[in-house]
């Protein structure tokens, strides 16, 4: 028993989730599962349905069809319970610019029914966590965009929620602020929080998240581990090979092989795209060696999340 990996506990589950706005369908039967402790990346083009999904999970929007459960609570029939366990940060969040930082957090602490005696300590703790302790007496209107985003994150954390729904939390931030924000999120994951984050900065999601979902036109295209996303593409792997001597002959050899989809010369290397995802670099080695070419090196190009995203989606919106 000790060697067995425990079954993941589901934090969010949607089944056939749909939402229409008039004649426009924003979500079309979305089936999504997020496990507890996941740092879950939610990827999609503008208008793909990410924000609509997060708003439904935050109980702000009601679904037109299907069900959604958050930590066991239905978002429609048990919305109050859902609100107590989530922290929702919208992409465009209204801040009261004439409030002080502590006032703002104190107010939301009261909204979450944190007792007055406990609120001051909680406010200080979350300010410490997001690195805004020095700004506690400032008016929100005087904070930079990055600081306001951090304040938004502090607000989300004020009632110690188990699930964080973050819609584009890093949008508009400079590189340093983005990196710091991501570090905070990793810290929160270590504290046991489940985090769903939608973002356009895919390279960061690739390193940050353990699981991702790709959504297009309101439908789920992929959901699973970041490492597995590449296997989901229908296109073949990309191999980078270096040969000595007659490069033109090597090119000819590769182009006549039906298992190879494309070959181009790039910076002294041959960039070879295989015809199907089942094939690997051995195909290239075999073709070149049998044809008499002198193979110096062979390596597989790591497919980035951005490239996979581009291959899987067409950028279409509802």
């Amino acid at each position, binding site marked *: 028993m000790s060697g067995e990996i425990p079954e993941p506990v589901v934090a969010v589950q949607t089944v056939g989730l749909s939402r229409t706005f*008039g004649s426009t369908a924003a979500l079309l039967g979305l089936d999504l599962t997020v496990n507890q402790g996941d740092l879950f990346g939610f990827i999609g083009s503008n208008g793909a349905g990410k924000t609509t999904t997060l708003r439904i999970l935050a109980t702000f929007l009601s679904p037109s069809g299907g069900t959604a459960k958050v930590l066991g609570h239905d978002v429609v029939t048990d919305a*109050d319970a859902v609100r107590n366990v989530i922290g929702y940060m919208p992409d465009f*969040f209204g801040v*009261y610019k004439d409030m002080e930082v502590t006032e703002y957090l104190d107010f939301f602490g009261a909204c979450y029914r944190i007792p007055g005696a406990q609120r001051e300590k909680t406010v200080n703790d979350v300010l410490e966590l997001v690195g805004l302790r020095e700004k506690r007496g400032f008016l929100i*209107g*005087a904070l930079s965009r990055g600081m306001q985003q951090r304040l938004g994150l502090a607000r989300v954390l004020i009632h110690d929620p188990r699930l964080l729904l973050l819609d584009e939390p890093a949008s508009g931030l400079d590189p340093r602020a983005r990196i710091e924000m991501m570090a905070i999120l990793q810290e929160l994951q270590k504290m046991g929080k489940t985090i769903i984050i939608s973002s356009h900065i895919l390279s960061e999601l690739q390193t940050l998240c353990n699981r991702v979902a790709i959504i297009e036109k309101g439908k789920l295209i992929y959901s699973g581990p970041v490492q597995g996303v590449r296997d989901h593409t229908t296109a073949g792997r990309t191999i980078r090979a270096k040969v000595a001597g007659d490069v033109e002959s090597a090119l000819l050899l590769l182009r006549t092989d039906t298992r190879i989809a494309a070959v181009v010369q790039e910076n002294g290397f041959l960039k070879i795209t295989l015809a199907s995802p089942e094939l690997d670099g051995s195909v290239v080695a075999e073709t070149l060696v049998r044809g008499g070419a002198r193979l110096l090196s062979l390596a597989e190009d790591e497919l980035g999340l951005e490239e996979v995203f581009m291959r899987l989606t067409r950028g279409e919106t509802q």
Partner: protein
Amino acid sequence: MKFLPIVIRELTVAARRKATHWTRMLSATVAVAITAWMLSVMAGSFPQETSKAIFGVMTAMMTLYCAMAGVRFTADCLSAERREGTLGLLFLTNLRGHDVVLGKLVASSLDAFYGALAIVPVLGLPLLMGGVTLGEFGRMSLVALNALFFSLACGMLVSTVARSAHVAVWGTLLVLILVAGGLPALDAYLVGKDPTSRSVFPWGYILCPGYTYALGFDALYRRSAWQFWTSLGATHALAWVLLGFASLILPRMWQDRPSSSGRGGVGHRIQLWLRGNSPSDARFRRKLLDRNAYYWLTSRRHWKPAVAWFALVVMAAIWAWGWHRFKSDWTNEGTYFMTGIILNFIIRVAFASEASRQLAEDHHNGALELLLSTPLTVSEILRGQYLSLRRIFLGPLVFILLIETVLFIATIKTQYGSDRSMWICLWLGMIVMTLIDLGALFWVSQWMGLTARQPNRASANSLALVFFPPWALLALIGMASVTSHTGGGWETFFSMWCLFGLINDFVVGAWAQMKLREEFRTAAQRRYAPQKGLLEILAGK
């Protein structure tokens, strides 16, 4: 075409808007309906008499609509751009102040202009029926369009200097009421009390659209043509002066000020003063927050109740001035009753404005989305609103009721017989209706705040919904009784006014309450859903 590029762009955009066409159609439909109704009511009258009545009613309505158009159409057009941060983008190009001012004026006023223009052909009917001359027709059209231009120009100037939507809208309304109605009305009242006295504000009449309107009819125009054209020309010239001034100052007012709202900055100190910075203020705020978070949100500025009191102090100062200047002439039942009407008007307008403000702002800037994702319930939000409004208005309302009781007693002490009965009914009716109106406004204003596309229009919409239907119905019945010579006494009209007001308050109040309790969250989501067109709604799609 390089001339006035914003005007061309904005006209093109406005021409494509559905609202532009619907406004024009609605105005023409209302005008045709009223005309048809009057024609049917006055079927037995002489055609000339009928045409004069129709012409009088239609031109009066058109002039009033035009004179107040600035509040609705231009008051918040530049201030909204400044708040959104888009005004600066225009000035980063080669555009100059007058390009922007005239462009926004044209864009914002196209609906108003079309609305007025759609009524003009209907005015042609009385012309064809006889009894109305071509000169009257032309002058009245001119008066209405001139009033529209002046009103829109006032709105533009206020919008240039204001930042908050509330300041812009109420500022424009105040300026228009003062310029077009306040001074001439006060003067007329004072001169009316003593016909031998000289006019107190003789120049005040010149800018009043009502004055120009009255002079436009043949009977007065024949005797006072010069005054008519002077009044028309002065209003028109002043409108251009206002626009010129707006164009001049706008390039100096669009830039963001350097932030001084960091700790210790001027902005921060102002905010601290506004919210109250003493230990007792802090204790008070903490108490509010523990009681109801939304109550804290709407009441955290300690000076809020002071604004209502300030309005009463201003009113008291005007009253004291009148008493000092006119001595015993001031203290009579007419002044008392007018004081009561103004006090009730002020508290209703202020109440509607405050009841709709927070929800409208929160909905507009997205803060409501945050609040509704917390465990804060709709009932708690409504309860917070109630507590806040009670804190701000209960004191002033009790004070107004006390003053009105004193004025009421002073009135009935000097009246006997049927006059005494009349004043008792008028006073009691006014006081009771004010209280019931406030009850209806509490629900209607909040619902309007939640659903209005533009926050600044929420309070105006609620006031219109609560006050317009009974007054419109009463006006139609009044017109019918006057034109068909079957009018009743004041008792009939007073009873009808109370009855219509009660029914309307109950219906719209109950409707808004039901909507708030059952559809609050749905309405809060609505900003993200594309709006249906009228045809789609009618077709049930």
